[in-house]
C-alpha cells in the first residue's frame, strides 16, 4: 500500500487549501456562509484521512472519543441562545487550547518514558519517537505552554461571560506575581527542552502554565472579554501550529499558523474598534464591574463608510431619526 501515505498527504493538502479558501470567503459578508461549509469539508477530509493513517493504535478508542466530543459540542452549540454565542466561542476555543496542550503532554510523557527505559538499561521500545531533538522538544514545550494558557484563560473568560464569575480578583502586586508564575513556567519549560525529561518537572510545568492563564484572565472585566477571547484564539492557533511541527503534520502547521496570524490581526482590529490598545485591555484592569463596563463598550464606536454600508445591507429595517444624537445627549 505505497499509495496510501500519498493519498493521506494529498488529503491534508486539500484540507489546508479549503481552510484558507474558506477563511477568505468568510471575510466578506456576501460569501461568508459558503466559507464555513468549505472549511467544514476540509475538516472532514482531514479527520477521515487521519483514521486511515497506517501505524495507529487504539482506533476504537479514537472513534469513541471523537463521536462523544462531536455529539456533546454539536448538541450544546445548537441549543444555546444566540446571545450566549461569545462564551461558547470561548469554551470551544479553550477546548482547542486544551487539546494542543494534551498533545504536548502526551509527546513529552512518551519521550520521558523512552528516556527512563534507556536509563534502566532496557531495550528502546518507545513508538516512533526515538530521539527527540532539542528543536522538537522546545516546540512541544512552547505549544504546550501557549495551549495551557489559552485553555485555562478561555475557561475563565467563559465563566465570566456566563455570569458565574462576576467578581474581579485584583490585589496589589498582582502583575508581579503573574510575571513570576510565567517566568517559573518558562524556566521549567527550558529545563524540559534541554533534555531533563522527568515526570515531576513536566507536571509542575503544566500546573504553572495553567495557573498563569487563570491569573492573567481573572482581573479582566467582562466587556473586554471579546478581545481577550480573540487573543486566546490566536494563541490556540499558534499552539496548534507548534504541535503540528512536533507531529510533522502539515495541515496542523498551516491551519494553526494562518489562525495565529489572522487572530492576532483580528484582536488588534477589535481592540481598535473599542478605542483601546491590547496592552490596555490585558493590563489596564480598570472599570469596576462587568455591567458598568458594558456601557463603555457600546457607546463610542468609530465607523467607516464601508462598515456602515455593510451593516445597512444586512439590516432588516433601517430607521433614520433626525436629531437623535442631540436628544440623546440632552443638548
Amino acid at each position, binding site marked *: 500500500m505505497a499509495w496510501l501515505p500519498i493519498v493521506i498527504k494529498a488529503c491534508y493538502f486539500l484540507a489546508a487549501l479549503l481552510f484558507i479558501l*474558506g477563511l477568505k470567503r468568510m471575510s466578506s*459578508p456576501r460569501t461568508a*456562509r459558503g466559507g*464555513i461549509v468549505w472549511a467544514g469539508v476540509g475538516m472532514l477530509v482531514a479527520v477521515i484521512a487521519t483514521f486511515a493513517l497506517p501505524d495507529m*493504535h487504539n482506533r476504537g478508542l479514537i472513534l469513541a472519543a471523537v463521536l462523544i466530543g462531536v455529539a456533546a*459540542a454539536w448538541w450544546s452549540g445548537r441549543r444555546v441562545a444566540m446571545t450566549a454565542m461569545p462564551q461558547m466561542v470561548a469554551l470551544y476555543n479553550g477546548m482547542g487550547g486544551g487539546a494542543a496542550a494534551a498533545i504536548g503532554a502526551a509527546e513529552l510523557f512518551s519521550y520521558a518514558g523512552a528516556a527512563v527505559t534507556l536509563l534502566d538499561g532496557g531495550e528502546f521500545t518507545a513508538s516512533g519517537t526515538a530521539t527527540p531533538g532539542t528543536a522538537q522538544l522546545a516546540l512541544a514545550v512552547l505549544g504546550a505552554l501557549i495551549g495551557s494558557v489559552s485553555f485555562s484563560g478561555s475557561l475563565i473568560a467563559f465563566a465570566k461571560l456566563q455570569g458565574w464569575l462576576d467578581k474581579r480578583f485584583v490585589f496589589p502586586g498582582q502583575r508581579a506575581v503573574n510575571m513570576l508564575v510565567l517566568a517559573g513556567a518558562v524556566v521549567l519549560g527550558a529545563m524540559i527542552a534541554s533534555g531533563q525529561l522527568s515526570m515531576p518537572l513536566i507536571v509542575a510545568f503544566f500546573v504553572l502554565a495553567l495557573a498563569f492563564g487563570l491569573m492573567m484572565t481573572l482581573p479582566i472585566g467582562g466587556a473586554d472579554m471579546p478581545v481577550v477571547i480573540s487573543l486566546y484564539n490566536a494563541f490556540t492557533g499558534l499552539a496548534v501550529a507548534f504541535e503540528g511541527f512536533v507531529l510533522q503534520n502539515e495541515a496542523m502547521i498551516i491551519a*494553526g499558523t*494562518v489562525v495565529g496570524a489572522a487572530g492576532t490581526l483580528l484582536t488588534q482590529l477589535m481592540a481598535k474598534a473599542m478605542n483601546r490598545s491590547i496592552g490596555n485591555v490585558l493590563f489596564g484592569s480598570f472599570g469596576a464591574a462587568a455591567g458598568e463596563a458594558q456601557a463603555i463598550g457600546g457607546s463610542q464606536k468609530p465607523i467607516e463608510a464601508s462598515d456602515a454600508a455593510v451593516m445597512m445591507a444586512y439590516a432588516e429595517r433601517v430607521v433614520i431619526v433626525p436629531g437623535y444624537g442631540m436628544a440623546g445627549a440632552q443638548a
Partner: protein
Amino acid sequence: MIDGFLALYIFMLAAFTGYEIIARVPVILHTPLMSGSNFIHGIVLVGAMIALGHAQTPVEIAIGCLGVLLGAGNAAGGYVVTERMLEMFKSSKPAAGKEAK
C-alpha cells in the same frame, strides 16, 4: 521530512496568508471571523488523534483521550456556532443571496 528551514518557510508564508486574508474586513464580521478561525484551529483534533494513536502507557492513553475529546469539541462546536452566526447574513434580497446558499 520537514526540516528546520523548510518549516520556517511554511510558517512565514502561512502567517502572511492569514494576515492578508483578514486585512480590510468589515467590523460586522469580526465576531463570525473569530468564531470561524476558532473552528479552523479545530484541526488540532487530527493531532490529538495521532497522539492517541501512538499512545502506549495508560497515562498517555488517558491524556490522548482527553485531547481527542477536547479537539472534537473544538471542531464541532466551532462549526455549529459559526454556522449559526453566519445564518444571520442570509440576505433578504434574492439577488445577493445566490452564492450565499
